């Protein structure tokens, strides 16, 4: 088994000693549906927070349901702390789930919602309620203990859902779009709070999100899923720096191209060449941020011909306090410029422009 190597590597990190040994999560989830196949491999050490990031319909929620046992696996395996779970029914898995819309039982108070799990797992009524009260206290929700879910705010309901999932002491915590149901203002506060709770949680957490910011703030490692497959995984910084698909590039706000490198020049698969500082050979990605692009209405005099492209404005939109210009032409790209610059250049859809990027602002890496 690779477990021993994994354990040896992970032992010093989390200070928790669990009776089953620090195994964490090792899973290959295969779920066949008509017209769709999910096939992802996931691994996470205890204490690690994994984010499944991907567009809608990529299979993230299916993966989460498979981990919880709510959707049966067609194939693959699921090991948690060394124990095989693929044939274990959901009620017997040491797994806690925070559902997207929380699914708090509407007829039970916050306290009884949290006490539900411990009760089902064999605790006495008084014991379960005491445990639930402690969890609510920890979540800062002691005053809401007797409140019914419909009277809780979105942020409070989210915390009750988290407390309910944690109260069974799961070895795997699953969160489905944990912040999606919240408005922008609550989101910020809840995200910070959730991050703290996840950091305290000693077992594996897997969260599903389509929001790159949530993923990057909350997770130690991202697994990007597209069309049922893992297309990239790594630390948030790594993924933000070196996206490998257009979807991720768009999420992290980079222009991304694929081509063949020869020295400092990358010949794009279907376009011009880009000069880079890295010296590589073979298939590579080239990425640069929209803010690295400079636009000119006329061909800049005296500029070298390198990384200079003739483009046309396809669309304009405000992007924070900037203007984001989508360009087509020799090289399709996104460029950010100030409102003032946009006005001076008299940019409007259809306007021809010259776009240039310094080689030092690009980043090339092997594909």
């Amino acid at each position, binding site marked *: 088994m690779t477990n021993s190597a994994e354990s040896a590597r992970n032992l010093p990190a989390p200070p928790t000693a669990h009776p089953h040994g620090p195994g964490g999560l090792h899973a290959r989830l295969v779920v066949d549906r008509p017209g769709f196949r999910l096939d992802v491999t996931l691994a996470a050490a205890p204490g690690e927070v994994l984010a499944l990031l991907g567009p809608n319909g990529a299979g993230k929620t299916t993966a989460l349901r498979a981990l*919880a*046992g*709510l959707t049966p696996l067609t194939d693959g395996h699921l090991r948690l702390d060394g124990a095989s779970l693929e044939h274990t*029914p*959901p*009620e*017997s*898995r040491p*797994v*806690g*789930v925070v*559902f997207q819309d929380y*699914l708090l*039982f*509407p*007829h039970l108070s916050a306290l009884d919602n949290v006490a*539900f*799990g411990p009760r*089902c*797992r064999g605790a006495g009524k008084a014991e379960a309620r005491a445990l639930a009260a402690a969890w609510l206290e920890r979540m800062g929700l002691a005053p809401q203990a007797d409140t019914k879910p419909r009277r809780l705010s979105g942020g409070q309901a989210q915390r009750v859902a988290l407390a*309910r*999932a944690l109260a*069974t002491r799961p070895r795997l915590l699953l969160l489905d779009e944990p912040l999606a149901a919240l408005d922008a203002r609550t989101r910020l506060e809840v995200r910070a709070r959730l991050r703290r709770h996840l950091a305290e949680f000693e077992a594996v957490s897997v969260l599903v999100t389509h929001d790159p910011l949530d993923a990057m703030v909350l997770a130690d490692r991202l697994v990007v899923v597209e069309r049922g497959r893992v297309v990239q995984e790594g630390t948030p910084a790594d993924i933000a720096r070196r996206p490998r698909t257009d979807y991720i590039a768009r999420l992290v706000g980079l222009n991304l191209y694929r081509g063949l490198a020869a020295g400092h020049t990358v010949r794009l698969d279907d376009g011009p060449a880009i000069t880079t500082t890295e010296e590589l050979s073979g298939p590579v990605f080239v990425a640069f941020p929209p803010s690295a692009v400079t636009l000119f209405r006329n061909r800049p005099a005296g500029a070298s011909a390198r990384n200079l492209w003739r483009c046309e404005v396809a669309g304009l939109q405000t992007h924070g306090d900037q203007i984001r210009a989508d360009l087509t032409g020799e090289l399709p790209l996104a460029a950010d410029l100030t409102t003032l610059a946009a006005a001076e250049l008299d940019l409007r859809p259809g306007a021809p422009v010259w776009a240039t990027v310094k080689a030092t602002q690009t980043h090339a890496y092997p594909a």
Partner: protein
Amino acid sequence: MTPPDAPGAAAGPRTDRPRRLRTGTGGRRGVPLPLLLPGVLALAFLLLPLLALLVRAPWRSLPGQLTGPEVWQALQLSLVSATAATAVSVVLGVPLAWLLARTRFPGRGFVRALVTLPLVLPPVVGGVALLLALGRNGVIGRWLDSWFGITLPFTTAGVVVAEAFVAMPFLVISVEGTLRAADPRYEEAAATLGASRFTAFRRVTLPLIAPGIAAGAVLAWARALGEFGATITFAGNFPGRTQTMPLAVYLALQNDPEAAVSLSLVLLAVSITVLAGLRDRWMTPS
């Protein structure tokens, strides 16, 4: 004459939906005569007999009529047996509704159709069928008799059986509809918290569908209370044992019409009480 193709015009003012007000020719004002006339006639047809009951009621002798021991006996038997039949319907019908709504098995659609059959079956036929099944020489009744010494026909228990047979489908259909409308993901949430399917049903689903069960139980109870055909066929008409209010009314009509009217008034009062109880559920515009 207003063209007869204007059902929307008539529906408009009643349902008060702006979408419909624009259809038809008359808009808000015109109510076409071909619809108004039969409609009012139908209303009169439904209400006049009840009015007649009130008009011709022997109000003066009513207290004396209703304090007679036979009346109380019949009323008591009616209430007890209808309540028992409702209890049987709930205890057996809710699980059946759950099976129909939450599990998949071959022939489920067919089973569902069978459950609704007693709804459309003439109750007398139901009574005959019960006799053939549970009668002393019936398919099952024979064994009940020889093994346990239980005979159901012509007993109070038989009344309950007959009423439950007729009333249970109302409850099953009502509860199944509520279950289908309830979000099954609450049961999934319960499962992830360690609840077995039965625990999830008992502690999550049941409280969530309680209003649907209550409504179904009231429907079943009302149906059981008025049950006549299956009861008289299967359980007979023995005062104090199997003679429920509807049977008493029918019998009284032969000998003492005034008493029949008094008994009918009692049943009418009970029905109106039930209707008032259901007001919040079915009589408020949705």
